[in-house]
């Protein structure tokens, strides 16, 4: 009997719970995540406030529900942009090679040379911050790593027998690239997408912590951490809870990507 893939199991379970949490957050929060209440400032755990309240008397549980969602949207958007652009760039450069490959890949290297946070910072200072700009900024920063992975896989696959036979059958280049080769690249891509997602979660948290990501009063995990730092000693749960959520979110996807590698 095959040994149980605990990584995949636990990772999937954790991610599933987190996703459920996020989906619920989109449609329902026990309190409005932005409603302030002077009487409930720093309130403790109660039936009404499952995780207590922050310095404005806002319900921490509701903010975490909403915040996970915002962080997820940013991370998802980032990875989506990164993956789609990465697949196109990687596929064309890897499949055709030549001068185009040389030029695009050198540009790619140049972008890759900047740390993604720094690149996003430059973007934000030029075009302003906010949730949607940050998705674009991080997305662009994430393109090069995906492009590289896809390109190297395409180079490996393009002279394989199944590609040659498809070509003999008269399949066009586009068909070969996206119908024949791409599915074979998927396993590698999926695990790097999962890792990329984790990096994007951390990047969002970092950007919002610096005050240039999700704008207040909207909640995001990074934003909540940034707000909690003044109250680290007086109300540690304000920092601990969003921090824990980031850890769980990242852990779930990491374990899943580990598990998927084993499955291959």
């Amino acid at each position: 009997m095959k040994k149980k893939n605990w990584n995949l199991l636990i990772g999937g379970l954790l991610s599933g719970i987190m996703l459920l949490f996020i989906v619920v957050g989109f449609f329902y929060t026990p309190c409005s995540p932005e409603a302030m209440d002077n009487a409930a400032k720093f309130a403790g755990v109660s039936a009404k406030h499952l995780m207590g309240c922050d310095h404005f008397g806002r319900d921490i549980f509701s903010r975490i529900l909403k915040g996970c969602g915002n962080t997820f949207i940013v991370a998802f958007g980032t990875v989506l942009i990164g993956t789609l652009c990465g697949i196109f760039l990687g596929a064309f450069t890897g499949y055709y090679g030549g001068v185009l490959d040389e030029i695009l890949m050198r540009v790619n290297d140049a972008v890759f040379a900047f740390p993604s946070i720094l690149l996003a910072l430059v973007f934000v200072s030029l075009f302003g911050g906010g949730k949607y700009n940050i998705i674009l900024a991080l997305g662009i920063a994430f393109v090069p790593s995906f492009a590289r992975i896809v390109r190297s896989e395409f180079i490996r696959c393009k002279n394989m027998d199944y590609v040659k036979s498809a070509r003999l059958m008269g399949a066009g280049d586009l068909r070969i690239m996206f119908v024949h080769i791409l599915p074979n690249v998927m396993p590698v891509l999926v695990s790097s997408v999962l890792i990329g997602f984790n990096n994007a979660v951390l990047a969002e948290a970092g950007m919002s912590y610096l005050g240039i990501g999700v704008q207040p009063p909207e909640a995001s995990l990074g934003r909540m951490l940034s707000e909690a730092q003044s109250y680290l000693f007086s109300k540690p749960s304000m920092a601990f809870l969003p921090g824990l959520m980031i850890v769980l979110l990242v852990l779930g996807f990491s374990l899943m990507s580990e598990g998927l590698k084993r499955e291959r």
Partner: protein
Amino acid sequence: MKQKMLKNILSVVVLAALTIALGGCAGGKAGDGSSLDSGIVIGIPQDIEDSLDPHEAVAAGTKEVLFNMYEGLLKPDSEGNLNPALAGEYSISEDGKTYTFKLREGVLFHDGTAVTAGDVKYSIEKCADAGNGDALNLAAAFSNIKELNTPDDKTVEIVLKEKDTDFLSYMTVAVIPEANKEPRTDPIGTGPYKFVSRSPQESIVMEKFEQYWGEPAHIQNVTFKISPVDTAVMDLEGGSIDMYARISSAQAAQLGDNFNIEEGTMNLVQAMYLNHDCEYFRDKRVRQALCYGIDEQGILDLTSEGKGTVIGSSMFPAFGKYYMDELKDTYPRDVERAKELLAEAGYPDGFSFTVKVPSNYQPHIDTAQVLAEQLKEIGVTADIELIEWDSWLSDVYTDRNYEATVVGVDAASLTARALLERFDSEAGNNFINYKNAEYDAAFESAVNTTDDGEQTKFYKECEKILAEDAANVYIQDMASFVALNKRYAGYEFYPLYVQDVAKLYILE
């Protein structure tokens, strides 16, 4: 098994030895700290990078330190009065154009030489010459000087071209010896403390000036140590600094029993400043609706435990006779009235606008968040956009490219004019694009009046117009907290941005 036990014992011994060694260090340090000779260490948020020359220093953070070293003919006190300092007495002629200052006897510079009328003349002329950089913005004010005479060594006579009721407040400008050729690195003044040394990015050291003419300082040595705001609490708790000005209420709450928290005011007008060129805020009814829509006390309760002073116009309480407390009630919270006004103005369903807030000022961000939440109730959406301080200065203040912003505006000098001048239609620093003929007229009358009572009346009228016209959504003069180690006392708040160390003393 035996080996393992040996290992355990060994590690315990090493640990113990280490603890003792480290404890020894700590003990030694504590001993140094408690000896009174070492003096007080005051944390300041940034280094004195501009200049030690009082006429070149621009940063408020620099001026608050230099206040202890330099003095002018007159010196402000914590009540906002101008008291005779280097000038023992002065007189103003009937027509208000000739000022005669008699220098106090026996006033010495830190290098031991006596202050002469020539030094005063030199200092004023140095400031009046815009070619010197005009860091203090005094060149314009001093261009009004027709003649500056020194009939004898102890008398300075200044004749003005035009009468200027604010002229005395400029006479606080620091007097420095003409003989000193290196005021930037070797500063010499007449203040209660004299300069000892400066280590860039680290500290500035001063010691008590024994031959000071006035009431001497109490503490022998003073060190201003650079300690960023973020680490101020740790530095205070760790004992490396004894005092830190302008901490937040959250930071104050974190400090333990070793510190007294003195509460004062920041002396600035915190408001949501509205760009009057923006289509929404051109309409007075919309501005009034916003004023009706917010609850200032509610903001204070949520952001600073209710500490601070609610204000209703561009003036704060430290200004005494100019301040009108009643204006804060011009627009009490009234959600229904706000909605009516919005409907009248053509926005029955409200509207949304962007508030730019400097990202490095947490108090303003907090205020903006509560504000946005309160405005939701009248159907108005305020989207907060955090921007860097540099971008704020260029985009908002200089280019006026914004809809609304939450900041605090301070007064450069102890005159009502410093706060009210910017709302004149023609003022270069009128960053809200405020244009109101009635206001311009009142302000002009105030500036041109020679009678003090009349002038106060006109300035008050200006304030009233700003309040009633809902020029901005006025909020508060923020509370300011100073942490002072319990070994010291005597801290005094000034209506200016200064730290007067000479007033501090050690409790036995």
